[in-house]
């Protein structure tokens, strides 16, 4: 096998350990081979990066990515002092991160989700006392994307605060793509919900949408649309599309 082939195999990640070791030894002892290696790598890098038009597109993508991340981060900025505000922000984060998107070809429903998952400033009135610290910890886990651990925490905390922990538990299930479990949890806590009822209804209706339970989704969206709460307009818009 000639060296260029071996270099290509290496750069493709398709080289055996024996050949790789031999190539490394030869590279250390052969300047010409080193130059070929660098040249080959640079050529492939150039091909990968593309021509001037592609480079221009790369630059454009970089700008758009920057804007996208800035917008995303500004949406997620936590309001100081109020852990409840943090909770609401995380709620919004979870809403915008529907992992079930790629679990089926139901793109229509998924796209509707994403279109309507826009963060808002939610003022949730919940009383928190000794459980506050644990809840904050669970929220932090959730915020860090450690959803499975957060889910366990919320399961534990549900004994003390069924409504709030149950609500976040459902959001964790959504994050994990377990829409059916999320739906069951929201249905359960929704019956006696006081503080989170608007949010629970909103996410529950979206779960119905996701699960293609359109008649249930419609009924709940109609209720939300008549409620004059912060989701009313969005619910009305969704209803027009259903």
């Amino acid at each position, binding site marked *: 096998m000639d060296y260029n082939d071996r270099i290509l195999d290496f*750069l493709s990640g398709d080289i055996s350990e024996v050949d790789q*070791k031999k190539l490394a030894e030869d590279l250390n002892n052969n300047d010409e081979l080193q130059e070929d290696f660098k040249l080959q790598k640079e050529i492939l890098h150039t091909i990968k990066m593309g021509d001037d038009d592609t480079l221009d597109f790369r630059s454009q993508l970089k700008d758009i990515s920057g804007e996208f991340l800035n917008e995303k981060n500004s949406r997620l900025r936590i309001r100081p002092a109020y852990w409840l505000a943090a909770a609401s922000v995380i709620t919004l984060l979870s809403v915008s991160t529907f992992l079930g998107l790629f679990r089926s070809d139901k793109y229509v429903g998924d*796209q509707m989700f*994403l279109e309507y998952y826009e963060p808002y400033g939610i003022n949730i009135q919940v009383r928190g006392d000794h459980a506050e610290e644990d809840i904050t910890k669970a929220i932090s886990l959730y915020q860090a994307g450690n959803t499975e651990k957060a889910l366990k925490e919320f399961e534990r905390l549900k004994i003390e605060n069924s409504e709030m922990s149950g609500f976040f538990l459902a959001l964790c299930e959504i994050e994990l793509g377990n829409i059916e479990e999320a739906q069951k949890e929201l249905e359960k806590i929704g019956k006696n919900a006081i503080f989170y009822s608007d949010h629970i209804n909103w996410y529950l209706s979206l779960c119905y949408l996701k699960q293609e339970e359109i008649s249930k989704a419609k009924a709940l969206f109609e209720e939300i649309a008549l409620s004059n709460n912060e989701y009313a307009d969005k619910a009305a818009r969704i209803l027009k599309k259903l």
Partner: protein
Amino acid sequence: MGKLRYTNNELLEGVYSRDSRVIKYIMGLVWVPVRDLVIQNSGKEDDAMNLIQEGFIAIYTKTEKPQLTASFATYFYAICRNIWLNELRIRKKESSMLSSIESAPVMAEEVDEEQLYEKRRQLYLKHFKKITKVCQDILKMVSNGFSNEDITAELAFSSVQYMKNRRTVCNKKLMDMIKEDPQYKELKYGL
């Protein structure tokens, strides 16, 4: 169902026409799953955004428009997944390789020789455009880290060995053309 914001075809066309609004919309669609894919597989958030950008480039530079059999988002995610798996495979090999080489290859940008590299880049592309389309396709896939098996399947070669033979010929042709170019001798000192 009512009208969606974008159809699959509109999303695809948006990439080809480099429509910033559509591109940002797609980023919103794929950000979380791609980010999770990367973070759960040895990467970081920065890698995720770079991967998404590579996904756009992969679509944009395709010579033939894809016929979507699933949603655009699913298609885009699959592309990112392939790129990331290849990247991981190469990173694994490369880290062990580079640790065993005394002077690791350094890209020109990193040694502040951008101008020289820019000239070499133009030289490489000039010759790359001269080789056959199939050679371009093979080397493009190699450059993106695709395995020999993936390249064989994607370009419908009869066997991996046959593809590797073609790859050897294509690569040698390109390397020879570059090395024989009088400009190369003037520019190679940046290497």
